[in-house]
């Protein structure tokens, strides 16, 4: 049995843990669906442009972000409850274990975002469903990249409570400082230039703009391009690999998280 097979088995069991956490799924679906179909629709009537069309891809990317970021919660629980120690006893290499977690994050993000896309498609006549298929590989890479942020969080927040606080804080900050809920033109009038650059290259902005461009078949904003999305995600993914390698090596060497 190859290392790849073993890695995929760990990725699968890790991913299934995400979908078995009913309260989490209820939270995510409750938030994302009501954001899209209630907040998006009501704001649509309060704004001078088609906000629903603008916002729906943003919600899909938020869903992708939350779903892929959940790997951080799973690893944190694994570290505190001892499942990570169990993984360390299995005949899989350290790289295999690290990639298994990041792969499960990638799949989790894409599957969850896919569900949201299907829901959005029922309400968006302009959505070119087939176009979204083109995006799957990019969304997968983006999802694994976003998991890299969770890995960094696992690396630095050892104590129980701190992890949850930082995780919520990072999610709030990244979503607020992106073009998920407002166009870049509005942001540019409000933020100083350095913050604007952050918003532009925030992977959530890149993901949302990618969806807007591909889904509606028209370019939505000049800042978006596939190489930038790919590059940002890839860098984050590498950071994620290094972080998780460090987390598990530290567990082996010091016996502590």
């Amino acid at each position: 049995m190859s290392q790849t097979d073993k890695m995929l088995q760990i990725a699968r069991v890790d991913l299934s843990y995400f979908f078995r956490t009913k309260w989490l799924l209820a939270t995510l679906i409750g938030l994302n669906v009501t954001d899209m179909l209630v907040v998006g629709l009501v704001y649509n009537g309060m704004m001078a442009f088609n906000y629903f069309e603008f916002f729906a891809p943003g919600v899909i990317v938020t869903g992708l972000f939350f779903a892929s970021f959940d790997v951080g919660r799973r690893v944190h629980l694994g570290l505190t409850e001892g499942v990570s120690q169990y993984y360390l006893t299995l005949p899989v290499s350290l790289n295999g274990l690290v990639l298994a977690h990041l792969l499960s994050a990638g799949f989790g993000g894409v599957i969850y975002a896919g569900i949201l896309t299907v829901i959005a498609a029922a309400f968006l006549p302009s959505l070119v469903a087939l176009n979204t298929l083109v995006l799957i590989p990019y969304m997968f890479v983006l999802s694994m990249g976003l998991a890299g942020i969770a890995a960094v969080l696992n690396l630095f927040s050892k104590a129980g409570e701190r992890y949850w606080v930082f995780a919520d804080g990072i999610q709030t900050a990244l979503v607020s400082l992106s073009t998920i809920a407002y166009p870049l033109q509005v942001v540019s009038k409000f933020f100083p230039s350095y913050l604007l650059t952050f918003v532009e290259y925030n992977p959530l902005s890149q993901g949302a703009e990618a969806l807007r461009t591909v889904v509606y078949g028209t370019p939505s904003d000049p800042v978006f391009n596939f190489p930038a999305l790919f590059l940002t995600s890839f860098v984050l993914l590498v950071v994620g690999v290094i972080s998780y390698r460090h987390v598990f090596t530290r567990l082996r060497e010091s016996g502590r998280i």
Partner: protein
Amino acid sequence: MREMLSLLRFDVRETFDSVPWTVYHWVFFAFQYFVYGQLVSRLVVTLNNYYFYYGTGLLIIMTFNISTWAGRRFVEGAHEGRLRYLLSLPFTRGELFLEQVLLGIVVNVIRIGPPLVLVLLIVGMPFTSLLTSLLVLLGMSVGIMGMMISLSFVAFKSFDIYSAIVAGMSAVLIRFSTVLYPLSSMPISYGTVSRFNPLTYGADLLRNALNFDVPSLLNPELSVVVVAAVGVSTMTLGMALVPRALEGVKSS
């Protein structure tokens, strides 16, 4: 009663020790109010001063989240074994219930107080508004806590289902209400649903208390009645259901 108060002191001190969460609530407020609220209010064209509208809504959201946490904490205690210990202490079930509610109120004041002051300062409201609005928020808080605690009978069967219900309900209650947008801006169907949501009455009452001029705000007298009725009824329900459920609580 003295024993109950010493438990309250212990729990409050524990909350003070939990500085990261308190700071998180303030950071959450800062991002939502100074970034999200600012930017979205620039996009809204149908409502004057949406920024203020959003700020008050945000306070309601925070009250909701913190009160939900307080209710959940009680139920979590049952599953982590803490509640069994509390049941063995020398105070009545009613006192225990009261302690949880008082704790929720204290935590709300600590975590919402500073953001509330900030919003009032920004919109230039007098100090008297602080007391009125705090009263409205705490009134709502009691209702929300009562609701979460009353639902605990579900949690004693399955904590997962309880968490899922609470999570789903939180999303729906906030969005199908006037917390983020007035009734006049909603599609008719959403507006109809929102009229049956106690959060709508709480949010509109808060805006009334702050003299926010929105024509579609619900009648303040009616809002007072609804907020008070929800508080009293959920608490009464909780006090009736929980002691019975407590003694049969299953651990998992």
